[in-house]
């Protein structure tokens, strides 16, 4: 009698604990993914789609990708270069014009954000023959940019490990990205 009670009390314990554990782990995993792939709100609802379809190349607005670690954002001047004449009625474009008149920079919200101990440079990746879509996804079909991959270390390594032997050694060295 007692003994059986004992067995039941015991029988309920471990399954319960393990269940809680599983829930926690899975929940954390899902949550972190959501957080990583969420994009912040932008001051201007910039439609990449329209610009790409209009035949504007990426490097026209993000010109530094070839020569600097930072691809860079278009200066207000660059925006106005076209929008002084094009689509002036558009409410979003009006916002740009306003920044331009106020001589204020557009406070874009950063979407892709690496921790400050990661040293990434666009230049070598582009000269290695990658194109923007490889990492940033099909931007040409997006409005404001939505990240397509959580750009963590594993994601980088997936690609670096596939390189030819002599390069892979160099590219998988910690000091390639961490200093």
């Amino acid at each position, binding site marked *: 009698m007692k003994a059986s009670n004992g067995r039941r009390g015991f029988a309920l314990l471990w399954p319960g604990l393990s269940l809680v554990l599983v829930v926690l782990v899975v929940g954390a995993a899902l949550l972190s993914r959501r*957080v*990583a*792939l*969420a*994009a*912040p709100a932008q001051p201007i609802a910039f439609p990449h789609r329209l610009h790409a379809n209009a035949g504007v190349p990426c490097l026209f607005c993000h010109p*530094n990708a070839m*020569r*600097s*670690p*930072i691809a*860079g*954002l*278009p*200066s*207000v*001047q*660059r925006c106005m270069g076209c929008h002084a004449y094009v689509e002036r009625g558009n409410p979003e474009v009006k916002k740009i014009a306003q*920044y*331009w008149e106020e*001589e*204020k*920079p*557009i*406070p*874009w*919200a*950063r*979407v*892709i*954000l690496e*921790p*400050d*101990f990661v040293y990434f440079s666009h230049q070598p990746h582009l000269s290695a023959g990658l194109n923007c879509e490889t990492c940033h996804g099909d931007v040409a079909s997006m409005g404001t940019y939505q*990240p397509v991959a*959580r750009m*963590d270390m594993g994601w980088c390594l997936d690609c670096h490990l596939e390189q030819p032997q002599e390069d892979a050694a160099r590219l998988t060295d910690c000091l390639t990205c961490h200093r």
Partner: protein
Amino acid sequence: MTPRLTRRDFIKVGAGTAVATGLGSAARKILLEPFVRPPEDVLPGQATWYASTCRQCAAGCGIIVRVINGRAKKIEGNPLHPLNRGKLCARGQAGLQVLYNPDRLRNAVRQTGGRGSRTFEPLYWDAALDLLTEKIGALSDPGRLAFLGGLMPDHLYRLASLFCDGLGAPPPVIFDLHSALEGRATADRLSKAFFGSDELPVYDLAHTEVVLSFGANFLETWMSPVAQSRNYGRLRQGPFGGRGLLVQIEPRLSATAASADEWIPVRPGTEAHVALALGRIIVEERLGHVGSHRSYAVLYQDVEVGDMAQASDVSVETLRRLARVFADADHAVAIPGGYLAGHRNGLAGMLAVQALNVLAAQVGREGGVFLSHPAPASALAQTARVDTFDRVGDLIARMRAGEVDVLMVHGANPIFELPAAAGFAEAVSHVPFVVSFNSFVDETAIQADLLLPDHSYLESWGYQVPAPGADRPVVSAQQPVVRPLYDTRATADVLLALASRLGGPAAAALPWVDEVAFLESSLGELVSSSLSAFPADTAGDFWAVWRRSGGWWSEKEIPREPEVTSVVETPLRVVEPTSEGDSGSYPFLLYPYPSVSLSDGRGANLPWLQETPDPMTTVSWGTWVELHPETARSLGVVDDDVVRVVSPFGSLEAPVVVYPGIRPDVVAIPIGQGHVDYGRFAERRGGNPLALVAPVTDPDSGAWAWAATRVRLEATGRRKALARLESLEGAGRESLR
């Protein structure tokens, strides 16, 4: 005003990097603010290098500054610059902390509530200028205006003198401790007397075999340490054959002496006696291969080797050996150092040392003595010259006598740098209106009524004619590498604005609209110079090249040979050193020396330099007293025991460093600490040995004899651990294995 404003147009790459987590972008919002109009010389994330000139000391080395996103990140030597060839010293490297110093004065203020009250009221520059104009305009006699300059850039000195001229005020008085410690004023006199030149001699260390350095710490702070260190490297292991010999003659083993092959601990103030003895021996024994002994015999007629050895505490054998070495070398040079100028027989002593070079026919000879080049353009000829202590004394007297109504101070800090006994602080109280242009609220600025901070040297324009110069004519360029962080204003512009407001002769003397216009006109002559390493036809080209390459200099080296004046026909005098305080009650001679990192104390507000260990004692962040092991034992003190050093003029307490490299009758204390006002890193730290020094001068040169004060020691029984790099247990023993 605040850095935010200037930073606004720059992409904030670094923003929020303090919080680095693996989390995604939505976790926190970071703004990327693109340019409104992109400037052509800034590529976000890429470095731009700007060439300029270092102002951490008077040497005038060329620098290049790495600028990323509008922020200066690193200073390096300018590889093109003939003076330092891409090399830079610790103080030069630390320049960035002058620019980004948290204690900088950020805008024009007036000190309400009395001097030293530290209650500052911000002023608009116009208001400040009006106030100053009014004060100067109200002068009954322009002679009642005084301008005191410290380490001034040449262009500013010229402007200031023109300004004073135009007003009819006496020319600016220039004094800074660093120059006093390297004996610049005396060296000027010497050069004048000896070579009839206004330019300082250059000692060709790179190509010589034997160097006799008489109290010249040329690897630390003396004259142009970077250029000299570079040449020292070649003296040691250069492409020029054998390894040179360096003999250091001074009472304390300085870092320079540590690098020497031989250190001669001579009795303080008798370095020259050694020089005289050497000369006498060379002449007597007809040493060397120079047939000119007879003609120079007259120089040494009053010299008796035995007495010299006696006085200088150097054995006759050593003297004979040195004489032979010096005379036999094809290329040898004797350097009259700054420490000599610190004694009351300074000029005579340096004369005696320089005479050795003449005697050994090393003047104008490879590996010997050359002269710096004068400014290559007449407009630049008027370069900043430090004045002797006498002239500072006159100024103090005038102030005390109430003959000065407006005192303008730029870059000078006499209240810290001069001994209290000199009475500058007291004299200032007799001056109705004091203006300071210093970037920091130092001991002198705190006594000012109006503080009009100049830009830091990385934010300002200018030119500099290095003295001592390089192997060719050089004018070094100074340009802003970042836009000014704060609402400071170039003192040159302030003077120009004042002049135009005052009108009359002053305005006539300073016709330029602003500093840059003034520079362009001053540099005009150089535009079509044929010598130039970077030829330019138009003024525009020249200006571009000037800024790109960091200055103007001749393409090939042009050694300038000095010719010796008639001084060298009159017998050299033997002047015994005298010192303040009787040797009975003050048994030791005080040896204050410039710290390698803080130099004369102007570096004390830079954390990097404070943290930099002294090469010899490895101490940082403090003041210490160096005692010979014997002295320490007799006083019953060991390392880190606090002793009181007392002179007739003041006293100072500091921990002991038992120092094997110092004469038993000498006590050495580094200069640089002991600031009362100079920012959080400098204030209330260590002590200032100059408080002990007597305000006496060398009668011949009128220079301040800062090394001629006697002190006594008292143990306090207290201990204070110094921040040492070395372990006292290890006690600097050679690697055990």
